[in-house]
Structure formats: structure tokens, C-alpha cells
């Protein structure tokens, strides 16, 4: 939002309060505060304000005013306020949040703070807001029209966002914006908006993304205004299709050469920042709790104890190292939240180890990766803020609970005496993410489960939904039907491969009892797996969304020990069934949380996406999915054998 340059409406600064005062005086000046009423016209609908008051001569309206509530409803706005509360929050249809507070003249409209002439005040069980500021925030202007006052929707803002040779123009108004092109030629295009007025700046030079300038003019009457936006185009500029996202917004993109400068208040879309690696050169101070370094030795550095500690902001990993070494670290891109440090010219002097969750660390593994490299691999909860720095005893990795959208993905440094990278052992070429899992992948995922199944050959398959809960639906195709079909296919494959299988349901029924609660239903499915002492629980689902955009396969997990299973299944389904790999995602899901054993919920594809839908209704594709899930289970169980005791 900060990159958006508001072409802010200037309507109201001088003229608007005066007009409002006159309108208010005409309607209510002779009536006592609280009993006055005044009538406005908004799109041919009478709006009667009856909860009116005055503060220093400024018209105030109560938030409980039926007329105001009616107007807000017409505008699609929602009020959040309770008697006695200081804040009045109005969410507009855009959506944008308008915020007033009792006793504070400042008010916010989205990210923009403005100042009203008087502050809201509380009286009885109502809060009175300055009417001029409120209408301004709603992009409405009162205009005297004979004996009546019209609340005229205004073109509130025009934003131009430029990025390279592309510029996007976004207009917003106090009423639905229906645009039509009234004139178009090679050097200009004119859009007409019926029903809205404007006092925006008439001319604006742009010179970006194929737009030279824009001109805003108005015509029509007070009750039926029109606003024209004339866009002068650079030679060869093109424009895209108009996008009307929320009714009150108008958006259109332009492409073309520009001078390269953005001299007239055009927001340049920021390039994705790439912060510098968070490496602190030099040693940091350490407390007495730090692990002690192993004795110094000539030749390769020696890597000793690796200690994980919880901190108030996250966790720290301290690696005891003696001798000189260089290190390189790498972080995969979201949603794959793995990170590793390769300490080169180093020997591991302690056994390879695995450590379990210390938030936000899901797991940590240490091993001798090759004869000269020790690898410390972390599985993180997300793209957490992370810093790698040499310490007095070796290397310190701090992982913060905070997450960052654009984390650095690699870095390097040295430990001990200054050793240049070229003097150290040859750098290990990072293995591309898609190659992980080949060979010996056991270091890379989450911790091993400490759960000991009483029946290690049993896998419980849960076809999602069913009975009174059909799940998502499209064209009569129910999620519950698709999940049962895939589950039955998976059952047959697993049995053929020597597994025992239990299904939570084998028909279109509720598992617990008809019309049960969601909790009872989900717990019943977990109980089947828990009571049987199963090795794994695999819940099969079909995703959906309110629009058709999202597509692909996602595997959800909740517990650290679910992660490896989720990774194997996700990779195999996305690869073998040809869906988009949306990755593994941690979530607070009932069915995976309450399973004693490693459990995953696979959202195989989106019923709401046409391409995914075509796959979902194909029996051949569903068979591929079942085989891919079975492959993932097989790979997981090979790499993660059943623990013989409850400990590591």
C-alpha cells in the first residue's frame, strides 16, 4: 500500500464543509440537537438523518442513526461498534477500513490519516461523528440541487502504479464504477463513468507505461453526473481489458515505452528486495551455557556438540567447532522451508544426530555429508528470519519466530583464522531442490516419530467428508465421492504391496453417527487409527476455493513428525499425477493433530479449477494419485523405519 500514490480527492478541503454547513443549517439549524433531522438524496433514495448534533458549529451524526445505517448498508459498508466503545470502525465495500475514535480529530481511511475539524464525541449510547469527514471518507459529496441536497458519489482517487514498461491505473469511487469507452484512437482513450462526479486535479502528467498524461473532466447534472478520464497514450502503447474487481473499483493496465522516469508522482512498483545475508562477521560474545569447543587440531576443523536452545524470540543452534573452516548456507524457497549449512574442511567428531522440535525449528540433523563437509540441516516452520554468524566456540545459527517474505537464500563465511573460500575445500555445489530425496534423503525432512505402532503393518486411510457432509461440490460431483474412490484405489494398491489397511469409511456415511458434529466426526476417524495402533494415517481430500484461480496439490501436516511423510507424498503426487506442486503446509488441522501417529491430509486437486476438475473426474488420474500416494508411503516407511522404543 505504501507504494500506491494516491491521487487524493481535493474536493472537500474548502468547498465541502461550507456546503455541508449550509445544507445542515437548512435542514436542522432551528431544531434542538438530538431531535433535528435532515434529508439527503443518494441515487434517488431518500436518506433521513435524525440523530444529529452540532459541535463548534460542525454537523455531527450518531452512528446509531437509522438513516446513516441505511446509507452504509446501501454502500455495502459494515459498522463495527458497541455502545461504550471508543472506536467506530467502518469497513467499506472496497474493502477499506474507516476508523474514528472518540476525542480524536484524526481519522483513518485505509492507510491514509486525515484530520476532521472536530473530534467525535459520545453522548448517551451513541457516538457522534463529524458528518463532513464521514461523507468524505465514503467518497460522497453533498451538493445543493434546488430544494434538496444530493449525496453525489465522487471519483475518490486515481492511482497509477508503474513497473517497467507497464502502468496500471486504478480508480475508486463512492459508487459502483461502470466505465465505457467513448472514444479511442492511437494516441488517446476516453473512459466515461456515469453517476460519479469529481473534483480531482484536472490534468496530470504521467509519462510511464505508455501513459503520457490523464485529464479528468465532469459533465451532466448534480443528480446525474458524469466523469470522463482522457488518457493520452505514447506511440505504440496498448491497453488491457478493464477489470472491475469490487464494484467501486476500476482497473486497467497499459503497456508501452516511457522516458524511464517517474517524475509526476507515479508510484514505481518496488522490485522484490533481496536483503543481504544476515551474517555478522567476527566473533560474538557467548555465555557460560555455550557448548565448549572440542580441542583445536591441525588440518580439518573438528565439529563437536550441536546444541539447540529455546529463546524468547525463537531458538539458537550453537555448533562447537575448533580449527579453521569456511561455511556456506542455503535456504530453499517457500513453501519448502528447509535450510542447511555446509561446514567445509571439517570432520564430525560426534555421532550423526537428529533433534526434535524447538520452535520454530521442526527438526535439526547433523551428519558428515562427504569426507570434508559437515552438514547441519534445519527444517523450519516457515521462512523465518535467520542469522548465521561465527561465535567464540564455532558457529551460531539464530532462528527468529518472525517470518520474512523475501529471505536471502544463500551466504557464506569463515570460522577461526581468516580463510578465503578459495583456500578451503572446494565448495559443495548445492543440490537442486528437485533432486532431494534421491540417494540418502534421511537428513532432510522432519524428525523421526517417537510413536511406536502396535500394528506397524497397518495404514489407516481416511476418505475425507461423507454422509451429512459432502465437502465441496461442482456440477453435482461431490468431494466425498471422489475421496472415497481414491481411498479405495489406494487401499487396493497398499494391500497388493503387503500392507494391512483400514478405512475410516467405505460408503457415503458419517463415521461417528448421522448428522454428528464436525469434532465428533473427525475424532471418530482419529480414533479408528489410534485404537488400532496404526503406523500412519492418510486423509484424502479435494480442495476448493471461491474462485477458479488456485490449482494443484497440497499436503497439510500439523506435527513435526508428520513432515517427512507429507514431503514424500506431496512430491510423488505432484510428480506422478502431473498437478502443480503447491508444497507442504503446516496447519492446525483436527484430523492430523489428534492422530497419535504421523498423519497427513492430502488436498489432491482443486474442484473449483477447470483443469484440476477435469483431472478429478478422470478415473485414470485418480488411479495415478492413489499409486503416487502409495509410492510416497513406501518411500517414507523405507527411510523412517518403525522405532522399536518410544525414544530416539
Amino acid at each position, binding site marked *: 500500500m505504501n507504494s500506491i500514490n494516491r491521487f487524493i480527492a481535493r474536493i472537500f478541503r474548502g468547498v465541502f464543509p461550507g456546503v455541508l454547513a449550509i445544507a445542515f443549517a437548512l435542514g436542522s439549524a432551528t431544531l434542538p440537537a438530538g431531535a433535528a433531522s435532515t434529508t439527503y438524496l443518494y441515487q434517488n433514495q431518500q436518506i433521513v438523518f435524525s440523530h444529529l448534533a452540532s459541535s463548534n458549529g460542525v454537523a455531527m451524526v450518531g452512528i446509531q442513526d437509522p438513516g446513516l445505517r441505511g446509507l452504509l448498508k446501501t454502500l455495502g459498508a459494515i459498522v463495527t461498534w458497541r455502545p461504550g466503545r471508543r*472506536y467506530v470502525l467502518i*469497513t467499506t465495500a472496497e474493502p477499506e477500513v474507516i476508523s474514528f475514535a472518540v476525542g480524536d480529530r484524526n481519522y483513518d481511511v485505509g*492507510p491514509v490519516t486525515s484530520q476532521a475539524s472536530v473530534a467525535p464525541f459520545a453522548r448517551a449510547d451513541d457516538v457522534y461523528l463529524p458528518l463532513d469527514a464521514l461523507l468524505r471518507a465514503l467518497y460522497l459529496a453533498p451538493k445543493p440541487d434546488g430544494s434538496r441536497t444530493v449525496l453525489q458519489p465522487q471519483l475518490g482517487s486515481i492511482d497509477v502504479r508503474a513497473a517497467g514498461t507497464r502502468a496500471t491505473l486504478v480508480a475508486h469511487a463512492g459508487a459502483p464504477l461502470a466505465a465505457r469507452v467513448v472514444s479511442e484512437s492511437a494516441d488517446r482513450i476516453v473512459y466515461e463513468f456515469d453517476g460519479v462526479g469529481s473534483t480531482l486535479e484536472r490534468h496530470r502528467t504521467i509519462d510511464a507505461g505508455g501513459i503520457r498524461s490523464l485529464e479528468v473532466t465532469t459533465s451532466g447534472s448534480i443528480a446525474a453526473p458524469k466523469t470522463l478520464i482522457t488518457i493520452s497514450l505514447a506511440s505504440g502503447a496498448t491497453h488491457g481489458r478493464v477489470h472491475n474487481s469490487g464494484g467501486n473499483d476500476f482497473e486497467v493496465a497499459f503497456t508501452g515505452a516511457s522516458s524511464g522516469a517517474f517524475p509526476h508522482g507515479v508510484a514505481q512498483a518496488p522490485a522484490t528486495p533481496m536483503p543481504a545475508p544476515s551474517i555478522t562477521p567476527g566473533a560474538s560474545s557467548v555465555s557460560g551455557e555455550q557448548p565448549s569447543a572440542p580441542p583445536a587440531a591441525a588440518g580439518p576443523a573438528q565439529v563437536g556438540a550441536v546444541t539447540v536452545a529455546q529463546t524468547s524470540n525463537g531458538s539458537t543452534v550453537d555448533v562447537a567447532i575448533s580449527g579453521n573452516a569456511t561455511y556456506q548456507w542455503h535456504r530453499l524457497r517457500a*513453501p519448502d522451508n528447509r535450510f542447511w549449512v555446509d561446514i567445509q574442511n571439517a570432520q564430525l567428531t560426534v555421532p550423526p544426530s537428529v533433534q526434535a522440535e524447538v520452535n520454530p525449528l521442526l527438526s535439526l540433523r547433523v551428519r558428515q555429508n562427504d569426507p570434508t563437509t559437515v552438514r547441519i540441516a534445519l527444517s523450519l516452520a516457515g521462512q523465518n528470519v535467520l542469522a548465521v554468524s561465527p561465535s567464540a566456540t564455532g558457529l551460531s545459527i539464530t532462528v527468529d519466530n518472525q517470518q520474512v517474505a523475501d529471505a536471502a537464500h544463500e551466504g557464506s563465511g569463515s570460522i577461526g583464522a581468516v580463510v578465503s573460500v578459495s583456500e578451503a575445500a572446494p565448495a559443495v555445489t548445492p543440490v537442486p531442490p528437485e533432486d532431494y530425496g534421491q540417494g540418502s534423503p534421511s537428513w532432510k525432512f522432519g524428525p523421526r516419530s517417537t510413536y511406536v505402532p502396535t500394528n506397524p503393518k497397518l495404514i489407516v486411510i481416511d476418505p475425507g*467428508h461423507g454422509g451429512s457432509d459432502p465437502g465441496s*461440490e461442482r456440477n453435482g460431483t461431490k468431494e466425498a465421492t471422489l475421496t472415497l474412490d481414491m481411498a479405495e484405489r489406494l487401499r487396493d494398491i497398499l494391500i497388493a504391496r503387503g500392507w494391512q489397511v483400514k478405512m475410516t469409511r467405505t460408503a457415503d456415511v458419517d463415521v461417528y453417527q448421522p448428522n454428528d458434529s*464436525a469434532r465428533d466426526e473427525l475424532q471418530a476417524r482419529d480414533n479408528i487409527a489410534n485404537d488400532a495402533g496404526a503406523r500412519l494415517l492418510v486423509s484424502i481430500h479435494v480442495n476448493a476455493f*471461491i474462485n477458479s484461480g*488456485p490449482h494443484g496439490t497440497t499436503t497439510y501436516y500439523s506435527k513435526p513428525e508428520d513432515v517427512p511423510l507429507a514431503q514424500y507424498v506431496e512430491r510423488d503426487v505432484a510428480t506422478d499425477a502431473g498437478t502443480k506442486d503447491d508444497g507442504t503446509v503446516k496447519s492446525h488441522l483436527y484430523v492430523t493433530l489428534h492422530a497419535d501417529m504421523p498423519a497427513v491430509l492430502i*488436498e489432491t486437486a482443486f474442484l473449483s479449477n477447470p483443469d484440476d476438475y477435469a483431472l478429478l473426474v478422470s478415473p485414470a488420474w485418480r488411479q495415478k494419485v492413489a499409486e503416487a500416494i502409495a509410492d510416497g508411503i513406501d518411500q517414507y516407511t523405507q527411510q523412517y523405519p518403525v522405532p522399536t522404543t518410544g525414544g530416539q
Partner: protein
Amino acid sequence: MRRIGLLVVVLALVVAGSWWFFAHRAPSHSTESLTVYYTKMDGTSMGSWNVSMRPQQPGESSTEHLQNMALYAAVQSVAGPPGDVEAIRFPPGTHINTVSVHGSTATVDLSHEVTQQVGGTFGENGEFKGLVYTLTGVPGIDAVQVTVDGQKLETLPGGHVELDQPLHRSDF
């Protein structure tokens, strides 16, 4: 008598001046900001934007201020980013009924429209992740208990995310 009269006039001027000052001063407004998070359409990564937060106002207790900040954060989160930003959004019409803070847990009461999910974990997970990240960005709040029309639900009807316990950032 003349001195007393003068004193009365001076006192009256002081009182009037003080009243005018306190009545017309605009509380400071620009020192705090709130990061409002939303889940992007990849279903997992987060986007955000900043809005200003009012500092504690004269006469507003610390407890009331925290409640107000939590309410503001929740309303911003449910509203979501501007309409032209692609984001996972709550079902249309979903709004905040109330927000209260007890200890470090904010209880957010959502309107029943939140139950109008189209199915699938994608939307549910993204909606609650954005809400939890936003609320826990308010200093003093580290967990969010979701209720719907005043009722604690185990999950949304036909849903997936467990809601009968407070949600933390580490749950996502």
C-alpha cells in the same frame, strides 16, 4: 476588591485557556503502526500492509487501549487488503462482532458468514493464518481464540482447522 476581581479574571482566563488547549489539541497519531497480514494465493506465503495505530489517548486505560488495538487489527484483517490485491479472503459479509483480550489471548468473535466456506483446506487455513499473524502482531497478544456468533466451535461446519483452542503463529 479590585485585586480580587483581577484575580478572578486571571483565573477565568487560565481556566478558559486550559479548556481551549485540551479541547482543541489533536492527539499524537503517527508514532505506531500495525502490520496487517494476509495469505497470498499460493496458500502459504504472507503479504502485508501497514496501517497507523492510535497511541493511547488521554483517558484511555492500557487495558482499553489493548482491546481497541485488537479490535482494529481484527477488523483490518477480516477486511483484507484492497480489492485489487489477490489474497485469500474471508467469505463475503464476514465481519467482527466483538474482540476481547484476556491475558495474552485475543478472543475474536466472527459473524456467521465465516461458516460459508466453499470447502477445502486452502481458504480456511489462509483466512485464519492471516488473522492470527495480524492479531499476534499487536504487542501483548500471542494467541487468538476464534468464536462464531459468540459460540466456540471445534471446527467450522464441514471444516478442517481446529478452533476450540487458541491459535498461535506456530500453528501455521
